[in-house]
């Protein structure tokens, strides 16, 4: 069964119906939600079909697309991407639930969200570099419209900034991947974008480093890595709740995922060369993001800056180049998706009632809206890494990996955890504790549909927090595979002749003929 193709393209099925003018807003929402739930079912099916012990790409599907240039529709997942696919399938319906109160151009919003789901999942599944780039670039436009049409006051500025910033970053990726294609056509006699072939290329040290930087800048903008993060607070803050959830939970993940998939895989020598420098940037991001988050007066901006800090952990984990760090980074991507998704959801619920995001205007809300307060508290506790909730395991692994590569890195990363506790709990205290404000006396607590959105996230947080084994044991083979791959050629100083790479290859990726491990 072509699991991945179904998961990728199923959301598109809903769009033609949504373009029909006669469709009422309520039906549009229900239709979108049911399509997304069906997609979730298939994503779970793909997860079930995923063989946890193998480290290579699974559920691979390949169809020629433009044969003369070696472009193909090539999708597959490994222990990293399968979780991001499942996370996407979980967070999109939650995003739609968060948008249940929207009354402005509902059909358009739903159609764009479905389109966005297709490209997000497509980006996580693509194994053809150009196909990945197509999805990666196609993310921009729907998100641009979602921020720009349904966002708050400075939405146009934020949406244009988001679009141009990210497009500039990915421009370098395009040149880099075309360079790889040209190298492939010289070395193999046939141009190709297939990552399984491109990782066999022999590139000189200089080429590897430049290409690494080209890809890295593109992904670093998306993560975002300090100092390329300035688009993020604007985009997150101005976006509607649906947009913030999708942006924080999923779009940001395309950055570290791209680093893991492409930077480490294609340029292992350069990855080792730049690892420490990038780790330093990540650490700056962790501490800087936390400090700036502490200073925010707007609760949504606070959550946005907390993302800068948390995504720093993910990048740090990847570039510790240890298997603990890499596993931690991947599970942390999922965790950050859940916890920040929940935070934006709760902040959105709060904003719907109070029409303010200023922390100073709130206070004592726990008395009025105990349900919202509880959800915010759970999200905060998860976000600061309380043991028993999901973030703990991820941050723990990342810090373990950081200590493994450099003690100082580990020590600085720990301060990030402490600062995280400060800004999150302080925000909770200022918003929900203290004497109740008269203005908010009559506001409603959580509605059933909001509970329906909150409960699944909390449940997943607890499950991952208490019993992370099923997740980790699917990530581990891929994580140790990629670390072995990056470290394998450590002793070799003079570039990477194809011969050496080919010898390491079989241990990491099964040979091409055995690659379709999928169930039939």
């Amino acid at each position, binding site marked *: 069964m072509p699991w991945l193709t179904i998961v990728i393209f199923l959301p598109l099925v809903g769009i033609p119906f949504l373009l029909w003018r006669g469709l009422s807003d309520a039906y549009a929402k229900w239709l979108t939600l049911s399509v997304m739930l069906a997609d979730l079912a298939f994503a779970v099916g793909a997860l079930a079909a995923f063989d946890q012990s193998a480290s290579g790409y699974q559920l691979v599907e390949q169809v020629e697309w433009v044969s003369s240039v070696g472009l193909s529709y090539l999708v597959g997942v490994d222990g990293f991407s399968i979780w991001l696919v499942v996370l996407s399938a979980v967070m999109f319906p939650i995003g739609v639930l968060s948008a249940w109160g929207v009354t402005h151009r509902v059909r358009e919003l739903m159609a764009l969200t479905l389109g966005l789901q297709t490209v997000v999942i497509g980006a996580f599944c693509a194994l053809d570099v150009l196909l990945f780039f197509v999805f990666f670039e196609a993310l921009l436009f729907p998100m641009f419209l979602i921020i720009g049409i349904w966002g708050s006051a400075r939405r146009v500025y934020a949406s244009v900034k988001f679009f141009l910033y990210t497009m500039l970053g990915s421009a370098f990726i*395009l040149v880099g991947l*075309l*360079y790889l294609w040209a190298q492939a056509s010289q070395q193999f006699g046939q141009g190709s974008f297939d990552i399984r072939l491109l990782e066999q290329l022999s590139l000189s040290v200089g080429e590897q480093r430049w290409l690494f930087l080209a890809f890295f800048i593109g992904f670093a903008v998306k993560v975002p890595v300090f100092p390329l993060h300035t688009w993020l607070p604007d985009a997150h803050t101005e976006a509607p709740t649906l947009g913030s959830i999708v942006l924080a939970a999923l779009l940001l993940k395309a950055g570290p995922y791209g680093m893991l998939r492409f930077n480490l895989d294609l340029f292992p020598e350069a990855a080792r060369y730049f690892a420490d420098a990038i780790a330093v940037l990540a650490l700056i991001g962790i501490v800087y993001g936390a400090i700036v988050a502490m200073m925010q007066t707007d609760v949504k901006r606070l959550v946005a800056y907390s993302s800068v800090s948390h995504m720093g952990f993910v990048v740090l984990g990847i570039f510790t180049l240890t298997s603990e760090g890499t596993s931690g980074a991947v599970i942390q991507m999922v965790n950050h998706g859940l916890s920040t998704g929940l935070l934006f959801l709760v902040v959105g619920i709060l904003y719907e009632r109070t029409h303010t995001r200023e922390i100073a205007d709130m206070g004592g809300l726990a008395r009025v809206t105990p349900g919202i307060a509880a959800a915010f508290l759970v999200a905060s506790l998860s976000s600061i890494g309380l043991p028993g909730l999901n973030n703990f395991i991820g941050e723990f692994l990342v810090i373990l990996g950081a200590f493994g590569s450099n003690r100082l890195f580990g020590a600085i990363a720990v301060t990030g955890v402490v600062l995280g506790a400060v800004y999150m709990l302080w925000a909770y205290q200022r918003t929900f504790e203290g004497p109740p404000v008269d203005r908010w006396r009559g506001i409603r607590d959580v509605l059933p549909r909001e509970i329906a959105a909150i409960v699944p996230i909390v449940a997943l947080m607890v499950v991952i927090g208490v019993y992370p084994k099923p997740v980790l044991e699917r990530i581990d083979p891929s994580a140790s595979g990629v670390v072995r791959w990056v470290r394998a050629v450590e002793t070799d100083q003079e570039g990477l002749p194809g011969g050496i790479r080919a010898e390491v290859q079989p241990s990491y990726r099964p040979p091409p003929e055995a690659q379709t491990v999928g169930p039939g």
Partner: protein
Amino acid sequence: MITTPQIDVVAIGPELVLVGSAIVVLLVPVVWRGLAHVAVLGLSLAGVAGALVASVLLWNREGEPTALAGAVAVDRFGVVVRLLLLVIAAIGLVYGHHYFERSDEWRAEFYALVLLATSGMTLIAVAADLIVVFLALEILSLALYVMTGLSSRLGSVEGAMKYFLLGAFSSAFFLFGVAMAYGATGSTSLASISRALAGATEGVALALAGMGLLAVGFAFKVSAVPFHMWTPDVYQGAPTAVTAYMSAATKVAGFAALIRVFNVALQPLAWDWRPLVWALAAISVVVGSVLAIAQTDIKRMLAYSSISHAGFVLTGVVAAGETGIRAALFYLAAYAFTVLGAFGVVMLVSARGELRTTLASYRGLGRRSPLLAALLALFLLSLAGIPPTAGFVAKVYVFGAAVDVGAWPLALVGVVASVVAAFFYLRVIVLMYMQEPEGVAETDETVLPRLAVSVPAFAVLALGVFPGLIAGFLDRAAVLRW
């Protein structure tokens, strides 16, 4: 004794059909005064269809690479370019019919001029002799000068005058280049020039001077910087339907001729013209993209964008050889459909005359006319090179061709310029979707032009999602025979 060449009418069948139908279209309304205007459109479209058939017949033709004593080439490159030009002409005819009917300026000349201009363009695409290139250049240019001034508005007349004066200059440069090439090699046939230049050590200076002048002539036609000055005024002044046709068709024809001349006649000088084309490409993408930001009129903005797109095609041309030709052909096809569609929407939005072409008049279009706004958004995304549109695939093709020959710095300039360009395309989308309409403005609801606009829209999406549809043909068309 003069040997009369064998007249091979099949090789120039499409041109003969076009010129023939132009004459018919001119004469019939004179003889038959009460003829419905739609019938004239039908006649012209029939002429285009006939030329299409005549072109397709040449697809599988083998034998001599040139016909009519070496005047025209017989190859698949020519066939593909002709087909593209004829599709553009058909859509342009429908646009123009609607435009002039709407503004009560209907004239039968318009149809004849489109057919004549197209005949010049299809001829230039296959011209295998510099004299024929010049002849075709003049045929198409003269028709375009007149079409630019067809409307009685001041801007239209002014645009025509500017176009004519500057065009005459550039033709003179081109002709001078032909003379120098002849002086250097003793021939005007592309194949003979190539043979004479291959291994030549003397007289190369003259040939290089000729190459430079030919490049000026072509750069003017395709509006590459620094020979682009006419473009904004002419694009803005000309009736929008004419702008649509002209912007798409001239670029295709100009580049087809440039590609053939540079890859056949000047192929031995490739090491000399590559840096030249490289520089033209880089300056064009940067200047076009940056100047477009400052525009407040959508036609002017698209004119500057067409300058930057000339640079993108040149980026593909830098690669020379098959890879470069294939990339440039794909880019031309993608750009032609996109810009035809974009100007088509501009024509429909500006309803009657040229009143609403300012960017401000696009405010809230997403509310007023969702279909037109969606179509324009699609075309703008294609111009910006965002997947899944033809413009994205086209950019991948040309940048890939450039990187393949080691010109990755040029590709880098190109991708950064396309981010700059994305800004002004996005600005229109922001106006259409993120701002509320001001007042009530009439939109043109006529069905025929809307259908005509949806053809390029379909092409832009189809080529964006399934580039393989034409990639196979382009692979086979990328070989020039001489």
